[in-house]
């Protein structure tokens, strides 16, 4: 065991830091971000992504033929550690580069890879993931959107929902039902499509926190050439598993204020007992300790995963632990911080609330994090069944054709 950078790693870290200092502003509060309009923000994101790709920091682990540097996963981690110290401008590309493009690399034709991978890496084209539907979220294999073959095309009708970034995406990967007469997992097929195709309509969903980062996407007689199929007809579920495995690796990092921010707040806030600061308060100190071990447990667990990866092993479902820990810790910390601020904690105005209202804002986002990319409950089922090998829950959908499944409607 050794946490020191090897000479090669140290050189890479220095190179990364130099690039980041030259191209990113230091981490700014929620306030500065809110002040810039959405389109300005996107322009800055795209400009940064382009420089990042040109400097070889986008797709660090990808093969050279795809514009990557073919480096070991640890270098990706090092870059992530350094990048996290600056203003975040990579969000809009996370789904595309973390999930969609890896799926394209695994299943698209050589010509298609040449056409799509580069522009995505440079941030010229943004991708979204069109899986979830109104009646198929956790049970995404139960989806309904239909694709019917017509000559060399497929004709798509149906609706997707919760599609993050669909409103600014150029392309998407789309999971649809091509055969309702077989078991649900066997009748799915994956495609990619141009989001500007005729018949695609994107409607923003207003989320509980006020913003609109995700969308409903309607498909009315949308035509997709068969050449844009990813994997075989009926093999869509196997393709989706590749995407979702990448999702588990992609959803990482600390999603908002963590123990260190809580500690900063505690240093300057009076304790509920009326004696001293919150940081001197025994109950709060005990909570801080719990948050610290959770955050460290996640971070160090990832190091173990990366070590395993660097020895050629594939990460298993145990990486599901991360999102459960991080999402719940975020909800706990933000709740505790708001309560620690007492009546003042209800103020969400970033010009008045402590620390630019970072706790209040994240409090409204935390519930979404517990649901996005697999709910707490689904991730715990995965741990129980696939890590611990416990018997599967009774499945009423096994051996039943999709069209005969009970849906409650």
């Amino acid at each position: 065991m050794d946490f020191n950078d090897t000479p090669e790693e140290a050189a890479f870290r220095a190179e990364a830091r130099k690039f980041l200092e030259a191209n990113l502003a230091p981490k700014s509060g929620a306030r500065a971000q809110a002040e810039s309009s959405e389109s300005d923000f996107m322009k800055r994101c795209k400009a940064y992504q382009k420089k990042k790709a040109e400097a070889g920091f986008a797709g660090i682990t990808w093969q050279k033929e795809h514009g990557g540097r073919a480096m070991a996963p640890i270098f990706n981690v090092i870059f992530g550690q350094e990048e996290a110290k600056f203003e975040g401008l990579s969000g809009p590309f996370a789904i595309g580069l973390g999930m969609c493009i890896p799926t394209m690399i695994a299943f698209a034709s050589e010509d298609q890879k040449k056409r799509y991978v580069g522009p995505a890496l440079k941030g010229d084209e943004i991708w979204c993931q069109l899986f979830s539907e109104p009646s198929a979220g956790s049970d995404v294999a139960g989806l309904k959107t239909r694709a019917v073959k017509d000559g060399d095309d497929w004709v798509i009708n149906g609706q997707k929902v919760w599609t993050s970034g669909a409103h600014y995406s150029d392309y998407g990967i789309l999971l649809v039902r091509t055969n309702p007469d077989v078991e649900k997992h066997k009748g799915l097929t994956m495609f990619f499509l141009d989001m500007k195709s005729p018949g695609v309509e994107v409607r923003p969903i207003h989320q509980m926190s006020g913003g609109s980062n995700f969308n409903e996407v309607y498909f009315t007689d949308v035509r997709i050439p068969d050449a844009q199929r990813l994997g075989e007809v009926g093999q869509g579920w196997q393709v989706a598993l590749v995407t979702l495995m990448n999702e588990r690796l992609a959803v990482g990092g600390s999603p908002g204020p963590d123990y260190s921010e809580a500690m900063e707040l505690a240093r300057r806030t009076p304790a509920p007992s009326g004696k001293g600061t919150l940081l001197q308060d025994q109950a709060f100190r005990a909570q801080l300790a719990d948050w610290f071990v959770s955050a460290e447990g996640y971070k160090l667990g990832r190091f173990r995963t990366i070590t395993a990866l660097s020895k050629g092993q594939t990460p298993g479902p145990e990486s599901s632990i991360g999102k459960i820990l991080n999402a719940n810790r975020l909800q706990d910390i933000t709740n505790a911080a708001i309560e620690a601020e007492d009546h003042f904690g209800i103020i969400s105005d970033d010009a008045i609330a402590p620390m630019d209202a970072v706790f209040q804002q994240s409090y409204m986002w935390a519930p979404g994090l517990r649901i996005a990319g697999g709910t707490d409950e689904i991730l715990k089922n995965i741990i129980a069944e696939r890590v611990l090998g416990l018997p599967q829950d009774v499945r009423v959908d096994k051996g039943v054709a999709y069209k005969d499944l009970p849906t409650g409607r």
Partner: protein
Amino acid sequence: MNFDFSDDQKSLKDQARKVLTDKSSTKAVRAVLGRKTGTTSYDTALWKAVAELGWLGIAIPEEYGGVGLGRLELCVLAEELGRAVAPIPFASTVYFATEALLLAGSDAQKQKWLPKIASGEAIGCFALSEGPGAPKPEAMTTTFDGAALTGAKIPVTDGDIAHFAIVLAKEGGGASLAIAELGGVTRSEVKTLDPTRGHAKIEFAKTKAERLGKAGEGWELAEQVLDRAAVLLAFEQVGGAQACLDMAVDYAKNRYAFSRQIGSFQAIKHKLADMYVATEVARSNAYYGAWALSTEAPELPLAAAAARVAACDAYHLAAKENIQTHGGMGFTWEVDCHLFYRRAKLLAVQAGSPGVWKEKLVRRLELKNAA
């Protein structure tokens, strides 16, 4: 033993539910939620209706224009108002301002304000907080010189619309409660996590005010007002938690995943059972608080702290797990889950945070054991 509300009280509760379902649908709540900052922050029609029904004066004696019923009646109303996330300044006016007046007001002060409260003409508020963290006597900067107030209070729930405020301020070496009319006082609305209630920063600048209660007793009086408000708020919280539980149970029966009702998964069953247990613990503690409040029992301080701690816990759990049970739908603006998530947080800090009350609870428990 008889540890339950009477039939009359229960029928009042049924009546309240009917009225609120009719007049305070979540559409009405959303109208206040979605308003622009600086516009009227409460449902004026509902406020008028609750005044006409006598709810505002339910615990105010008849001699002061009230209905002259007791705190138990107020408790059942509070539960229903909490369930409905009612967008009116009921808590500020009734649980805080009215209780403060009943507790410490002179006859003249009661004559002046209570009839106007009962009729809905006067909205009150309670101004304690000045900055982040639990208020401390030595940190308070607002002063009262026996005739006028100077200093800023932030946030004041319903302070943007209130006609008068009960204010805790430094006077001499101690603290006093004072009552001030707010016409002409500088106020600015502040943005909060729960816009279904208005919040303000109030800046007193030699604002004329009258002392409420004795000079130097302000801190003790404020504690007593908070004890009373804690019990009444606990009923609102229990009502809100129960509404979340009902919503979640209903959704779990009707939503299918993997071709099963999601309520057939034990992960969901146990979640809802946990919400139920927490809500029942809160309900029992709130009932005991109601008894102590209505009989002015010496047990009130401990009972109030227990009611508050349990109610904050239950509402927080129920509000967040109701969202979780609804999956992606729960995270949308259109589904009502977030109305409760927002209100739960407001009610958890409005009378002092759970941390403060846990501390009070144990201190009071120690006192009781020492006695």
